[in-house]
């Protein structure tokens, strides 16, 4: 009540209405928008121009007065836009003026056509130097502490006979401020602390706390990353991922540290060129490495490079000047005072970077260009130390093994020396033979088996032997020739390509009804085909195997040692299965299986070694050869060496992360005006420089490089930077900028709703040392920001976009914030910062475009699933769909503002996206486990408080209570099971009552879908 009363006092005694349209804010923009194309600086159709006072009040070729002050009917200007009987209706070939626009022109002429001298082309407000405007006078009677922002806003409101709305209640104020500054709702604790603090500084303290929060940078990075077209992939076909996330982290950190905005600008445009550039300053230059890059076959590297620079020039002009410079790429700008030459002067600043695609092989191109290694982070450092320790340990073990086995080696040498040949083989007629095909075969005298049936596509052969005695150490498979095999074999499938492919060998021993599979090792063969080595016959994989191409028409053999020799007694059964699963009949025509009782470690020895072992005297080299062979045959050593290799590989893979940066190449490129914007048609040469319209202040060092440009952009020589910047920030807080064409401050832009406020804030930004936090704080501490958003219908009707600021800001949250907010409400939100992008839940087959090395989406099953939207991976050809549904851009080009649509696709996303179903479930669990008391009313109250920071009304209690009771009553067991199923095993819930959980998840979903929950 107190606040309301104070505001009543603010109403001025008399209300001054604007009586006639204002030339600068109302009329000039209309003339520019509709007329300047043909009656402006570049073209004067009909012999007159409407951007110059003298010409507009004169006569054109038709000798009739264009504007007759006080007499709209007699003004040719008005006649030609309303009366088609006088000839083609103006503007020619374009949208006609709307009725309200015609009326405005008519009213202006009727009121005397006041066109102040000096207001014409070249005198555009946004290009004028910044002067701090004087503050409007405070209202005569006021006990409310108004800050300067309010004074400007009130001045305009009063001119319209309006006033500020009362302050919103404190709980909603905190929620609005929270969402505005850190993109997250207040926690119940934060809210209570604020509500309990009744000191006058309570709100300011809350604001300071939010500005100091690490979450601040995460929220403000999002609109900046839209401008920077930050994404994690190339764009176009072959839309591979690339590492640039260190830049995203840099943005977040810089914003958290409140890096002065001029420095923020300079480091991103030219951090690499600063004297003694730091790592962080180099990472910042990732800003301009975000340009999309096509790496299809046939790409022209030079065309690509030019496209990227064009993107850099256009983005620079949009972001730091609010200029539509891209219009001047092919010809002088049609509306704004930028020439084509100006365009290429800025182009020249960017023209010295290296090519960014590289021909890697044949017609394959890859994204390339300067990359920089990042230092190891803590996690990597720990992992590295652990691996290094492992490596040392393994190396020691190997060394120790070598020492400890000297005796074994001598014994081995002795055994080897006593052999007649390396290994001796025995066989017998198999007790049984089975083939998985039609089973026709003949057992031969030499104990081999000749297959005689139809050639199968694939086959398993099983040899069984009984009556063996002694220790069996190895088995051998022979593939023999036979005249009955097509082309003699050894393979049956094709008379020409007689290959055999042994995908897997399996050896089993059966005793007393029990079967065990024996492990095989030390594979050896007389010959192996490339990529089909014999080891692949015992690797457990059915897609690999041992084969013998092109050595057809010759018998072949392979042999395998048993990892542990087995002592046989006659009742035991040895079975050897030859699995041949490749297909196309690549099966053996005449297999034979035999076994050995000699030392299996000799299996892979060539006879040469046996000879060496028999020698009395050996030279050093011969001794080493034997030792190596012994080592190679040892299972334990092999295991150690394998581990060592794996550890070394992991160490190698633990290479530093990288990020993309800008660098200048040694030699400067010459820059030319490109005729019609075509890089293959160079025109006049140009030097790097700022647009002619502006001056390069004398104190800026003439380095002619990006640093010079960056220094000019942040100097007083560029009056646009501070204006466009504060305008965007205002838009973030109020949903719409003071200039509603935030991407364009040129002559076609909208006149600011509050020009003096815009300039005042711009000066405030500069004079605070370019402090973002200072400006934001100034705005949120205004009464303007703190107004109630609720208003009478008339307010929404007459001012739907709230340009006059007679009520508080209220609008739907941007895509990422919407998800962050729901994650926070559900209690799932992870506060983990920085690092590579994350993949939350996403439906299947979103990433399925053409192109090589297509990355695959794997939904995280860890806290990464619930990290903030700013960390979600952005693949330009297939961005995260739930963000796209809420107007997030694909980051393929610089985006200054996002539309705010209201669509059924959004309703479907929040209701049905399984990601939101997970949040509803977690929110239900939070309600059930954290509410102070366990009755429904208290729980509903708790839920409402968390979601929208206020108590539920009795009406809201009733509606949600009804929903809860109906759900509870109607849920089936199957539905309960489905609703409470956890998305991944590691996720834990507190609640054990599944029915309650399921019923509450419906309530939780309803609350998350409230317009209030999704609005700030």
């Amino acid at each position, binding site marked *: 009540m107190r606040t309301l009363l104070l505001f009543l006092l603010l109403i001025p005694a008399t209300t001054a209405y604007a009586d006639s349209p204002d030339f600068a804010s109302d009329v000039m923009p209309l003339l520019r*928008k509709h007329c300047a194309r043909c009656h402006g600086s570049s073209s004067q159709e009909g012999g007159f121009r409407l951007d110059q006072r003298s010409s507009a009040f004169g006569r054109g070729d038709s000798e009739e007065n264009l504007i007759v002050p006080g007499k709209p009917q007699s003004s040719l200007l008005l006649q030609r836009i309303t009366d088609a009987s006088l000839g083609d209706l103006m503007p020619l*070939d374009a*949208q*006609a003026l709307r*009725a309200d626009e015609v009326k405005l022109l008519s009213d202006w002429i009727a009121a005397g056509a006041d066109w102040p001298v000096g207001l014409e082309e070249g005198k555009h407000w946004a290009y004028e130097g910044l002067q701090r405007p004087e503050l409007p006078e405070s209202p005569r009677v006021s006990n409310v502490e108004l800050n300067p922002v309010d004074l400007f806003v009130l001045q305009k409101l009063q001119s319209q006979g309006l006033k500020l709305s009362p302050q919103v209640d404190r709980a909603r104020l905190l929620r609005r401020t929270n969402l505005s500054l850190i993109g997250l709702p207040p926690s119940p604790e934060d809210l209570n602390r604020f509500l309990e603090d009744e000191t006058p500084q309570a709100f300011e303290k809350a604001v300071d706390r939010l500005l100091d929060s690490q979450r601040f940078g995460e929220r403000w990075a999002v609109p900046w990353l839209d401008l920077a077209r930050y994404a994690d992939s190339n*764009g*176009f*076909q*072959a*839309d591979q991922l690339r590492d640039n996330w260190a830049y995203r982290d840099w943005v977040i950190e810089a914003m958290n540290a409140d890096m002065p905005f001029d420095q923020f600008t300079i480091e991103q445009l030219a951090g690499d060129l600063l004297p003694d550039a730091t790592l962080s300053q180099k990472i910042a230059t990732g800003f301009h490495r975000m340009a*999309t890059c*096509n790496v*299809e076959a*046939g790409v022209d590297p030079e065309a690509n490079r030019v496209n990227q620079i064009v993107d850099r020039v256009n983005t620079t002009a949009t972001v730091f000047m609010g200029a*539509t410079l891209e219009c001047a790429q092919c010809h002088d700008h049609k*509306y704004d005072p930028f020439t084509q030459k100006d365009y290429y002067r800025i182009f020249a600043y960017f023209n010295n970077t290296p090519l960014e695609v590289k021909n890697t092989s044949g*017609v394959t191109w890859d994204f390339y260009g300067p990359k920089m290694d990042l230092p190891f982070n803590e996690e990597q450092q720990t992992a590295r130390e652990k691996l290094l320790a492992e490596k040392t340990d393994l190396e020691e073990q190997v060394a120790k093994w070598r020492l400890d086995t000297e005796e074994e080696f001598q014994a081995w040498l002795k055994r080897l020396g006593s052999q007649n040949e390396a290994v001796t083989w025995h066989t017998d007629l198999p007790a049984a033979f089975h083939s998985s095909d039609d089973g026709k075969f003949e057992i031969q005298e030499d104990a081999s088996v000749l297959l005689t049936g139809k050639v199968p596509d694939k086959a398993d052969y099983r040899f069984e032997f009984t009556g063996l005695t002694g220790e069996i150490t190895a088995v051998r498979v022979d593939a023999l020739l036979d005249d009955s095999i097509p082309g003699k074999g050894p393979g049956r499938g094709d008379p020409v390509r007689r290959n055999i492919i042994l995908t897997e060998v399996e050896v089993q021993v059966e005793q007393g009804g029990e079967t065990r599979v024996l492990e095989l090792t030390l594979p050896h063969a007389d010959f192996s085909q490339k990529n089909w080595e014999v080891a692949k016959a015992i690797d457990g994989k059915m897609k690999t195997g041992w084969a013998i191409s092109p050595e057809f028409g010759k018998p072949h053999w392979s042999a395998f040692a048993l990892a542990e020799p087995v002592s046989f007694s006659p009742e035991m059964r040895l079975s050897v299965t030859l699995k041949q699963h490749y297909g196309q009949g690549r099966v053996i025509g005449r297999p034979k299986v035999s076994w050995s009782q000699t030392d299996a470690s000799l299996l892979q020895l060539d006879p040469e070694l046996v000879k060496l072992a028999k020698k009395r005297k050996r030279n050093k080299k011969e001794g080493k050869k034997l030792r190596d062979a012994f080592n190679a045959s040892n299972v334990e050593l092999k295991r150690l060496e394998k581990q060592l290799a794996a550890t070394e590989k992991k160490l190698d893979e633990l290479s530093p992360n990288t990020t993309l940066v800008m660098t200048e190449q040694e030699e400067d490129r010459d820059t030319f005006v490109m005729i019609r914007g075509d890089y293959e048609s160079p025109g006049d040469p140009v030097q790097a420089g700022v647009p002619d319209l502006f001056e390069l202040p004398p104190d800026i060092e003439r380095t002619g490089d990006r640093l010079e440009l960056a220094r000019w952009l942040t100097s007083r020589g560029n009056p646009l930077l501070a204006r466009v910047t504060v305008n965007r920030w205002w838009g973030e807080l109020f949903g719409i900028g003071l200039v509603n064409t935030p*991407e364009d401050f*040129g002559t*076609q832009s909208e006149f600011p709703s509050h020009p003096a406020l815009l300039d005042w804030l711009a000066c405030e930004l500069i004079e605070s040392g370019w402090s973002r936090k200072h400006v934001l704080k100034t705005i949120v501490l205004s009464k303007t920001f703190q107004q109630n958003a609720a*208003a009478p219908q008339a307010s*929404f*009707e*007459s001012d*739907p976009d709230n340009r006059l600021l007679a009520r508080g800001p*209220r609008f739907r949250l941007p895509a990422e914030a919407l998800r962050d907010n729901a994650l926070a409400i559900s209690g799932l939100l992870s506060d983990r910062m920085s690092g590579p992008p994350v993949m939350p839940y996403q*439906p299947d087959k979103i990433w*399925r*475009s*053409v192109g090589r090395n297509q990355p695959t989406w794997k939904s995280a099953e860890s806290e990464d699933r619930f990290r903030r939207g700013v960390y979600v991976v952005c693949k*330009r*050809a297939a961005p995260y*769909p*739930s963000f*796209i549904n809420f107007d997030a851009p694909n980051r*393929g*080009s610089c985006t200054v503002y996002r*539309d705010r*649509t*209201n*669509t*059924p*696709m*959004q*309703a*479907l996303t929040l*209701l049905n*996206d399984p990601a939101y179903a997970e949040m509803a479930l977690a929110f239900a669990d939070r309600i059930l486990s954290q509410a102070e008391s366990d009755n429904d009313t208290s729980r509903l109250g708790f839920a409402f408080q968390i979601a929208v920071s206020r108590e539920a009304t009795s009406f*809201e209690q009733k509606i949600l209570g009804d*929903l809860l009771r109906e759900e509870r009553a*109607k849920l089936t067991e199957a*539905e*309960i099971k489905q*609703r409470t*199923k956890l998305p991944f095993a590691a996720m834990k819930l507190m609640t054990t009552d599944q029915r309650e959980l399921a019923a509450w998840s*419906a309530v939780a979903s*309803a609350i998350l879908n*409230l*317009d*209030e929950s999704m609005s700030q």
Partner: protein
Amino acid sequence: MTQDKQPSPELTPFARRTLLQRTGFGMGAFALSQMLHGETQTNAAEFTATHFPPKAKSVIYIHLVGAASHLDLYDFKPELQKRSGEDCPKELFESGKFAFVRNLPKLLGTPTENKYAFRRCGQSGLELSNLLPHLQGLADEICVVKSLHTDEFNHGPAQMFMLTGFSRFGRPSLGSWLNYGLGTENQDLPGFVVMITGNVLGAGSPAWSSGFLPSVYQGVEFRSQGDPVLFLSNPDGVSSQSRRRIIDAVNKLNRSQLANIGDPEIATRISQYELAYRMQTSVPELMDISNESKAIHEMYGTSPGKTKFSNNCLLARRLVERGVRFVQLFDQGWDTHGNVFEGVANKAKQVDRPIAALIQDLKQRGLLDSTLIVCSAEFGRTPFGQGDRAKAGRDHHKDAFSMWMAGGGIRGGMSYGKTDDIGYTIAEDPVHVHDLNATILNLLGIDHERLTFRYQGRQYRLTDVEGNVVPAILA
């Protein structure tokens, strides 16, 4: 205490325009003008439904992704056949840019076997390949443009250029422009629907993005597997009764919020939740082709429940019937760098029957006159071969290629434009991509120079600052 009072949002014309262009599936600029007519007094000519009477109301745009070998389908070159195997004329080769071929290649004519022969068809005698037997039977309905050319010779940029008139990111697609201009006739369905067979094209979803236009005009992908529209079906364990209850609760609470706050955006939100609920039934119904007659299934060669180009053709008809403005079909697999003759024959076999069925079906339903069918690709293929001669392919060719149109306002049974004897360059009546787009807009009653959107201080158009309608192909 809360009262459930309902304000009727009476907005200024401008506010209504802004609102309606950001809501639901978007209202078209012309419909808005008309709706607002009562509140304005400017000249009446501005407020006809379109710039001039439209010939077609909707468009089915088939894009053969990867670029079909037009020389083997539409633009027969006997001279090329005769000279097949000769070196490509050096001066021609060196004046162009190609994706793969670097060394002087050999000319490659269409095979002489009957399978690949061309035939003069119908009363008009329009020449079409035997690879398209069904389309041959409809030759009198279609107009083949043989002199199309584009600016880009790589898939990604060329697809963007063809569909958005710009080879980089950020511009609205043709379907978005049309919906921005005309709106959808069925407020319960998106006005711009995309369906895909095979992988997504290289340009990705930016090819059906609304660019700087409000995102209500973006293409919505209807999928043949999983949810037909992303997030259309309820999460596991949520029955349709439960869904209704939740939406009812949400809307009741939103109504009370509307009464308290007054923001008409909340009223819009309420209507969008109702629309979402209706879509949960209407879209699956629409996508379910199993109740189509046997004759229809035979005609198209459809199999319900599968991902098939023929299914998408039939769905395109169902969408157009329901007032969807623009249906975009992408079919992947036409990028025949190797073994072009086998490749194009296989692909032609997949699409010939369903496309012919679509034309016939629309015709028998009296919809062909109001539906424009476009069949194109991002560029064409070279008259010279690429790779091994036995299984040669064709490289990308941007300087001369063919596409065809049929239905709404198109003169059937004709070809327009000519290429030279070997199909390398355009000999007569070149048609640039901007000209094609200007013509498509024209058929829908739109002057391409006047369908503009103000962005970055400039009135943007689909056709940039170019584009001329091709009057000769209009009926």
